[in-house]
């Protein structure tokens, strides 16, 4: 068997190289998020947002931008025979799950690095809540990446995958989004961040991440069977 670390690095490297070359996922995700912020800005007719409203705008936008990336994460494997090539290789199959989840995590990270400052410019008068927002973003990204990779691998072989991904993903992601918005809302209060129940929400995010990382790792072998 090929060492898992080597196979993991090979898959992540291949996906990042392809994305840098083709720009098929990230630009669409960024464009979607920025456009949505613009629509919120004029739709809500507000120049400043805070608290739960700011939190809702951020996470609604990030979630639907993430769906664009999740839809595409296994497309090369499906359309160009990557699944078969991987199944023939002497590599533990969950390595593909962890590598794809890592790629999705990186996509979400880059997305946030670009669009959170844009959100700040559009809506925030008080920026001090953005620093403690980082662990919330990281924990939510991990959950989205694990669940998104799992759902995408199940939906990719269906012709209706564009419909299936949101249909399966959105109900399952509700607990993650409740925890993410709960953790974020007090960080973006108008008077500066407060940490009411912040630890509890982070714990919920961590539990969610743990459950879906383990479930994905455990069942991925079966999902790759014919």
């Amino acid at each position, binding site marked *: *068997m*090929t*060492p898992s670390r*080597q*196979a993991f*690095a*090979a*898959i992540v490297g*291949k996906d990042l*190289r*392809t994305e840098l*070359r*083709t720009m098929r996922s990230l630009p669409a995700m960024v464009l979607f998020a920025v456009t949505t912020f613009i629509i919120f800005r004029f739709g809500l007719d507000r120049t400043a947002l805070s608290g739960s409203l700011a939190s809702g705008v951020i996470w609604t936008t990030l979630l639907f931008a993430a769906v664009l990336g999740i839809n595409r994460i296994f497309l*090369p494997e499906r359309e*160009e*025979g*990557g699944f*078969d*090539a*991987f*199944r*023939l*290789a*002497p*590599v533990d199959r969950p390595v593909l799950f962890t590598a794809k989840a890592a790629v999705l995590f990186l996509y979400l990270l880059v997305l946030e690095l670009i669009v959170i400052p844009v959100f700040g410019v559009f809506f925030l008068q008080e920026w001090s809540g953005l620093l403690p927002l980082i662990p919330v973003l990281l924990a939510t990204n991990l959950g989205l990446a694990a669940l998104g990779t799992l759902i995408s691998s199940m939906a990719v072989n269906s012709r209706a995958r564009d419909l299936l991904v949101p249909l399966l993903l959105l109900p399952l992601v509700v607990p993650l989004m409740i925890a993410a918005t709960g953790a974020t809302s007090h960080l973006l209060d108008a008077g500066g961040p407060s940490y009411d129940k912040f630890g509890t929400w982070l714990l919920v995010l961590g539990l969610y991440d743990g459950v879906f990382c383990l479930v994905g790792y455990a069942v991925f072998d079966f999902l790759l*069977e*014919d």
Partner: protein
Amino acid sequence: MSEAPENAIRLRKLGRDYGDRPALGGVDLDLAAGASLAVLGPNGSGKSTLLRVLATLLRPSRGEVSVLGSSLPNEAWKLRGRIGYLGHEPLLYEDLTGRENLEFQARLYGIPAGEAAARIESDLKLLGMSRRADYRVSDYSAGMKQRIAICRAVLHRPALLLLDEPDSNLDPEGREAARSLIGRPDELDWESEARVTRVAVSHDPEKARSEADQVLELEIGVAA
């Protein structure tokens, strides 16, 4: 070279269905290690399905299957890395170059970087692809894709070659060049951990019979 099992492939009443539709039925076969088998039959007779079952890409619906001493589907994991599979699809990433595809393949198979680079260079040269290896696969013709796919199938020096119409899309020069990589076991320009066994699907009965030690003819859903 290590000792290979007496029979590289042993099939008893192998069958495979797609839903309710039988695609392959009642195939019996004994193929010695180091031998060459030609699989013949009309369209829809299950030739590609047979190859995909042997490659562990499809589970058999019934019957006994033993490949390189491993029983399928339960011991399929033991065969990973020992099979070279060339199917109808080239299994290449379109947005990577031919060389990048092969390097990716080498890393998945755990081939040390120096050894992989030497093999890639020599295989590309054999198939006349050295100068075009740094083009993206999406820019290749079907024949060029097939040449890179052949390099991919043998890069890890497998003990069992499963080839589905390997000559398709190749010009006469390409067919000749490919013999040293995917031809009869005694023509191969490389060595494996065991005697190389070759199974090739063909639509040219005359050529297939002249090249193979053994012939398996399939009819629609049934082995002849």
